[in-house]
């Protein structure tokens, strides 16, 4: 590959290649996308690992995320401070997990975090209700929402505590072959 780029050192690109599911070309392309979100904030030279974070509002305006009902939760799950401010590391991490080649276990971990609105490591009824409303744009009646949440917990809850722990969630995911293809953003 041509080594004309000056955005990253070779060592940095190797590190990114080994730590994500992207190739060198894709990482450079991602940097381009990150840069065009805020050209004045994001430096072109990342060789000294600048500490630059983009706010949530900018990230969720990307065409790939704009129409996704879970866009805020996705960005928040990958940000270290939990508020949705992503550095380039976290930006790449987010799209790496959502890429085609990421394994099921990794995606399941982050999917659980996305649906866990109150961040208590359980998917309780309120989390499910919020998820459902985002999915159907609040077109279900409250009784239907109640019924669907009850049935979902009934189907997936294994330890009988009326909420879904990560083990329950992962167990359900392994039985659904579609998960890998739906939990996937192309960039």
């Amino acid at each position, binding site marked *: 590959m041509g080594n004309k780029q000056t955005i990253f050192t070779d060592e940095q690109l190797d*590190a990114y290649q*080994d*730590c*994500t599911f992207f*190739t060198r070309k894709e990482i450079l392309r991602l940097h381009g996308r990150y840069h065009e979100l805020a050209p004045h904030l994001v430096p072109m030279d990342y060789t000294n690992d600048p500490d630059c974070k983009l706010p949530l509002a900018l990230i969720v305006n990307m065409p*790939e995320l704009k*129409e*996704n*009902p*879970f866009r805020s939760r996705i960005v928040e799950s990958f940000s*270290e401070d*939990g508020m949705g401010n992503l550095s380039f*590391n*976290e930006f790449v*991490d987010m799209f*790496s997990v*959502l890429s085609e080649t*990421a394994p099921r*276990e*990794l995606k399941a*971990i*982050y999917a659980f975090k996305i*649906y866990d609105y109150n*961040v208590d490591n359980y998917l309780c009824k309120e989390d499910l209700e919020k*998820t459902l409303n985002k*999915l*159907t*744009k609040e*077109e*279900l009646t409250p009784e*239907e929402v109640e019924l*669907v949440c009850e*049935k*979902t917990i009934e*189907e*997936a809850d*294994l*330890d*009988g*505590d009326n909420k879904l*722990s*990560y*083990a*329950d*969630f992962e*167990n*359900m*995911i*392994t*039985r*659904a*072959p*579609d*998960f890998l*293809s*739906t*939990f*996937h*953003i*192309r960039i």
Partner: protein
Amino acid sequence: MASELHSQHTGNSYPSDQQSLRLRQDSSPVSNQNYPQFNWSSSPAEDEVDNSGPPRDLRSIPLPMSLKRAVWQVQQMQVPVVSKVESWKWKKTKSLHKLKDRTRGFLYFITLWGKTLQKIGGNFGGGVQSYFLFLRFLVVLNFLSFLLLAGFVLIPSIVFRSVGTSLQNSTGPEECMNYNPNPEGLVVFYHYFLDFLSGTGFMEYSYLFYGFYNNTIVEDRSFSYNIPLAYLFTAVFYFAFCLICIIARMGTAARVAVATGGSAVGNYSKIVFIGWDYGCLGDQATKLKQKNLHYRLQVDLEEERLRKQAAALTLGAKILLYSLRVFMFFVALGLIFAAFYGIFEATNFSQSRTGEEGILGLIFEYLPSIVITAGNFVVPMLCDQIALVERYSPSTTVILALLRAVFLRLVSLGVLLFTLWRQITCEGDTNSQDCKQCQYNNKLYPCWETRVGQEMYRLTLFDLLITIAVLILVEFPRRMVVDNSSNMLTQWVGRQEFVVPSNILGLVYGQTVVWTGALFCPLLPFINTIKFVILFYCKKITLFYNCRPALKTFRSTTSTFFFLVVLLFGWGLALVVMIYSLAEIRPSMGCGPFRFFPSMWSIVPTSFYRLSQVTQEFLFFIGSQAFSIPLFTLSCVVMCYFIALASVYGNSVALLRSQIKLEGRDKQFLVKQIEKLKQLEMPKQ
């Protein structure tokens, strides 16, 4: 001890072990991200042992990126400590992985229609995309079959056209060998166009149809090529090749089903957690996806309600419902058989009026195709109305309608072939007036294989023409009307919906026709490849310009496995036709590579005796009991082994699943015990 257990319980949300790194759980309630902490104190010795794997495993760890990069740096620094052999091995695996990544990227780039399929999937969802994936599979299958046929039949025939000795001398009566397909006299120009459409005239005596091929064997010093034998074996191998491709593709789909234990996840959790396609692009697609999910949830709730209702029915109402369903079943069956009778009559009429001139002649020739297409359009519509009376649950209704449509399509093709057979072999009676001389009706069919090939050719062509005609005359105007008029009626009718199951059935029907006709029309796979490519672009255009995604989707009817099973039915039908033609009917004496043989298959024994003695004995041995019975027993044993293995895996999956459940309950029980103990302790203190 109690508090430790308690904290483990609250913090236990992530997988607690990875192969190469030891992770400690973060039990502090303050941190809201709750990442498992990386254990920095792991000894270098342990890392050495795992060194062949770490670069790959690092990607799959749910650590924040900065921590991962730090780990990576640590690993990079530790590499020189390892021995030379191990570091060489590690470098090799790393470059192999890089090569794999690069080839994957390259393959993605050159995959046929890769980008188009991605766009379709993003805008219309997985169901529509699976139709186009299936279409692409068929295009590739047909193209490879064409290469097969061209390489072994077409090109040798072209090359050895004028050379070669006839395999068997003429031994039949004079009338049977009377076959003159070349048009006589002056041919009007538009006749060429009509001939192109119906496969007669200048097209009849060409490489397109069976009748043109010679029954010659070419022998040189060290090279001999037996054209009839090649023709037969290529046809048989073509069927085997298609079967292998279909089964291989089914295998991938079935493997997923076995791996997930076969039992589908519950409907509701599936829709809530896996329903949303994160790759969905665009405002409209998102809104439609949301409506789709809403609809699916409503359907499930409705089915629940219906089930409760059905359970609450009185005995009298139940009897009435079941008798109504039985009656409607017979009505549907009656409709389907009426369609079959229509096809039968149309084929008889068409065959009796061959030789007519001009447009009227063309219409008579296309009559069976027209009746089949009309039947395939009208009968499912009527069956839909019948389904309203039957009042099954929505998913059962859809599956039932699909099965009826499959039955109708494939068996109507079978009826057409049966009618042809009746006429060719005088209803199987070789002593009747017309068939006594040549054992087939040589007055109507001097070269019956070519006639069957022509019929299949016309079916294929008509299918394509109808699709294009519907596209231009129905779908585009419908969109223009809906978009430009704000009438209540047009808005209610709305834009065209891309219905996947009926489109798939069209593809399966087309492919079955090609399989049936390939023996008699060797260029048919090539024509079909072109037809499917045109179809791909036509359907893509209509999808993007005229259609809205289907609001009502049912997972089971859009699965690839289901499509392949239906395709296998079609293959079975074509196989029956081929075997019967090979073994039972006498080949025409006036044309074709099997001219003077009593049956097509009899060339195999004839050529067999021309082989050297050693080869003959070897082949006899393989066919004898001493070899085939042990082989058969061995393959039974191997099959039993695999079946046992599969059931063992299924059992262990079920066992592990119930174990997970039990452990969850044990955990609950233990937590309750701890709470009780705590409460007992508290008053004491």
